[in-house]
């Protein structure tokens, strides 16, 4: 129960409340560049979601077993239980991302040539998509928490397992897809509008993104209410707020 509520919170928070694009500003380049048509935007979103999941899986494994302070594999190899390779974090992550993009590219080219053709140049460009590295970094922050040696402190909360990391990655990818598809829908309609010349292109896109971000800010309270609703440690509040809760509404401590 504890795990499920944690996962639901992570998913809702990553996909909607703290949307990767509209709250953390990661993945802005494809958000501006590939949001001209809905079908292309959706394809990009799917590709990013897929790569993000592969990269998150690999980077979680690397962090947990090799990179974090006191990681089992490193300690066993060096004979030093305090071994800490976290200085290599960024290099390993970027390597993992580049390889998973390469892997996805080869797989698609072999088994789904039409899909591969339709992605075209976007696939290699995903390597430099900030959203993926951002997901890896979030995971790193939460995996190396136990030892307290994250590269930048590390926030509160408990250590994440593989499930939490995967949920964050997939929900983040879904959030990216939601944002880019909404944007593409609006931009298709914008084609018929009389936009002032200096604002055409990126300018109006950014303004629309601002309004979208404003709309997504409306979700910001959902986080704490949902926590109250599904948190097992807080039975009185939970019973009070369960009616409006669509997910795990039953608190069983």
């Amino acid at each position, binding site marked *: 129960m504890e795990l499920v509520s944690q996962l639901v919170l992570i998913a809702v928070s990553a996909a909607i409340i703290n949307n990767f694009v*509209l*709250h*953390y*500003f*990661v*993945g*802005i*380049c*494809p958000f*501006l*560049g*590939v949001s001209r048509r809905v079908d292309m935007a959706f394809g990009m979103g799917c590709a990013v979601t897929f790569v993000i999941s592969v990269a998150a899986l690999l980077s979680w494994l690397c962090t947990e077993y090799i990179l974090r302070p006191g990681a089992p594999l490193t300690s066993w190899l060096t004979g030093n239980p305090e071994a800490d390779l976290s*200085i*290599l*974090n*960024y*290099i390993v992550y*970027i*390597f993992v991302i*580049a390889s998973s993009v390469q892997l996805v590219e080869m797989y698609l080219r072999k088994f789904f040539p039409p899909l591969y053709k339709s992605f075209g*140049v976007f696939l*290699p*460009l995903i*390597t*430099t*998509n*900030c959203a993926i*590295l*951002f997901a890896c*970094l*979030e995971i790193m*922050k939460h995996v190396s928490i136990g030892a307290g040696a994250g*590269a*930048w*402190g590390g926030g509160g909360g408990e250590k994440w397992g593989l499930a939490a990391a995967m949920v964050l990655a997939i929900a983040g990818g879904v959030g990216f897809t939601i944002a880019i598809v909404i944007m593409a829908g609006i931009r298709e309609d914008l084609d018929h509008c009389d936009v*002032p*010349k*200096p*604002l*055409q*292109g*990126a*300018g*109006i*896109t*950014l*303004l629309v*993104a*601002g*309004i979208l*971000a*404003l709309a997504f*800010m409306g979700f910001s309270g959902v986080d704490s209410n949902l926590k109250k609703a599904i948190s097992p440690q807080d039975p009185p509040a939970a019973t009070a707020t369960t009616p409006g809760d669509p997910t795990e509404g039953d608190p069983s401590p």
Partner: protein
Amino acid sequence: MANDGPAPLERFLNGILPENPVYRQLLGMCPTLAVTGNMKAAMTMSAAVMFVMICANLITSSIRHLLKPHLRILVFVLTIATFVTIADRVLAAYLYQMSKELGPYIPLIIVNCIIICRCEVCASRQGLGAAAFDAVGQSIGFALALASIATVREILGAGTWFGITLLSESWWPVWGIMVLPPGAFITLGFLLGGVNWLSMPRGKKSAGCGVR
């Protein structure tokens, strides 16, 4: 050898306005939007980007004859990741508060398109001098762009500039939205429109050449 690109000084000047990374090429949008809530963060970010860009450009330029076409981008990214790790550790050691505030955006410099773009366009084709001038010019252009956005956002959103109170709370109701995410998008949108509008009468095309 193949010194066919623009001269070092031209590279330097190009970076500041004609090929400004943010307003002209639309590159490196993540930090541009994310860390411009106040001037201090924006300037720290610019300094980190400048350090990484100069080092990465110099390294790339000195190994440009060894680069294989299909491994090019990977080499760039790994070079950049090394210097970003250095910058991150230095910030965490000497400016801990700022490093916490910038959070994931320092490591995200690795995938900042500006640096990869400069490695690709300039450093992998030209000598050390041109690469160094290019890096300095581009990062000054980046710093100016960040400063312009941060100035608008901090003054309107908090009434301060570099922490100095400019607009007193007594007669200026702060626009809290400007330091929040929507303010970043809206400010950059309007500034981009403004820059395009200013450069239109001179016959320059408002080109978004860097949009990918």
